């Protein structure tokens, strides 16, 4: 299992294909540096800690300053840990680029969806609401009945009701990678991605299509220093047992 990467959502645009189709794509700017690693010997599991966007010293708390100082890494605004299989472990300090992904592969993109505030059931769960006429009075957008009578005498759990809509972590699965721009570190995926422009998203190999997965192992590194794996389109070795999702 390869590491996921953190990226910034740049925005959406249309892209003409050879056959004349114009497809909607979301442009994502990969910004991921491996800050720390977890190894089997030391921690009992393998993972990489990835930092996103450079942080100013004054924005860091003392424990964070200590963490970066100890690892001799540039301070980062966001730190996330991703489980990887042992063969996909990347040394600290390496920068993961857009070449981590391959054109045509499928990815899952996780972000925080646009917040819609406190929404009624028509907007939130696509209820039909009540009549507009026929004597309906002040209940046009209401949810109607929420249950039965003496039995069961309560409202069942998970009953759809009004409440907060959006502003919640959301994953869109199996988005196709349409284009990659290594120079600018951009990945273009077909379709929409949760969240607003300039928001942070996480891109990972499609979880449900892992067997067809291709992509550089251990990771697509930007700086050519660690294991050079830019053009090796190795079929990913199935990450066996020890790492659980």
């Amino acid at each position, binding site marked *: 299992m390869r590491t996921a990467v953190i990226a910034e959502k*740049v*925005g959406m645009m249309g892209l*003409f294909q050879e056959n*004349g189709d*114009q497809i909607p794509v979301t442009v994502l700017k990969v910004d991921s540096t491996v800050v720390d690693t977890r190894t089997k010997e030391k921690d009992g599991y393998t993972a990489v800690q990835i930092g996103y966007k450079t942080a100013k010293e004054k924005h860091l708390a003392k424990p964070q300053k200590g963490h970066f100082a100890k690892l001799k890494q540039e301070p980062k605004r966001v730190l996330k840990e991703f489980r990887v299989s042992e063969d996909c472990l990347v040394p600290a300090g390496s920068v993961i680029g857009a070449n981590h992904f391959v054109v045509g592969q499928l990815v899952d993109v996780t972000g925080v969806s646009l917040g819609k505030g406190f929404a009624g059931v028509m907007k939130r769960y696509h209820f039909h609401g009540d009549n507009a006429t026929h004597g309906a009075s002040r209940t046009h957008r209401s949810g109607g009945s929420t249950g039965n009578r003496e039995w069961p005498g309560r409202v069942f759990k998970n009953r759809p009701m009004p409440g907060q809509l959006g502003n919640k972590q959301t994953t869109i699965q199996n988005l196709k990678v349409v284009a990659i721009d290594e120079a600018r570190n*951009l990945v273009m995926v077909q379709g929409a991605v949760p969240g607003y422009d300039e928001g942070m998203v996480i891109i990972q190999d499609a979880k449900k299509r892992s067997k067809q997965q291709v992509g550089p192992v251990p990771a697509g590194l930007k700086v050519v220093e660690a294991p050079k794996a830019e053009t090796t389109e190795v079929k990913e070795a199935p990450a066996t047992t020890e790492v659980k999702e």
Partner: protein
Amino acid sequence: MTKKIIQDLKAEQIAKLDKKIPDFKAGDTLRVLCRIVEEKNTRNQAYEGVCIARHNDGAASTFTVRKISFGEGVERVFPLYSPNIVEIKVVRRGQVKRSKLYYLRQLFGKKARIAEEKDSEVKA
């Protein structure tokens, strides 16, 4: 900064498609050669009519061409930069006072005519 990237990408796409687009505006009569892919062969189909609107949006720009086909008004919206648009030819320059000629939809026959622009260079 992120907006800049999108702008650059759009501009690059237009440059990459490298389309030769003649100077035309609403009111002009156009002949659009459109690539059509059938099961086996690919051919070009011409569509001629009056351009009634242009919608400018970078690589996603479109233009609308209206014609009367067998007594029925037909409008087609073409993506300006689409690889399927083989050629756009200006047949006749029209003189109009609007950028969107949606009023033509209500008119037919002699009323739907558009005056030819004086001292226009294109003569079909």
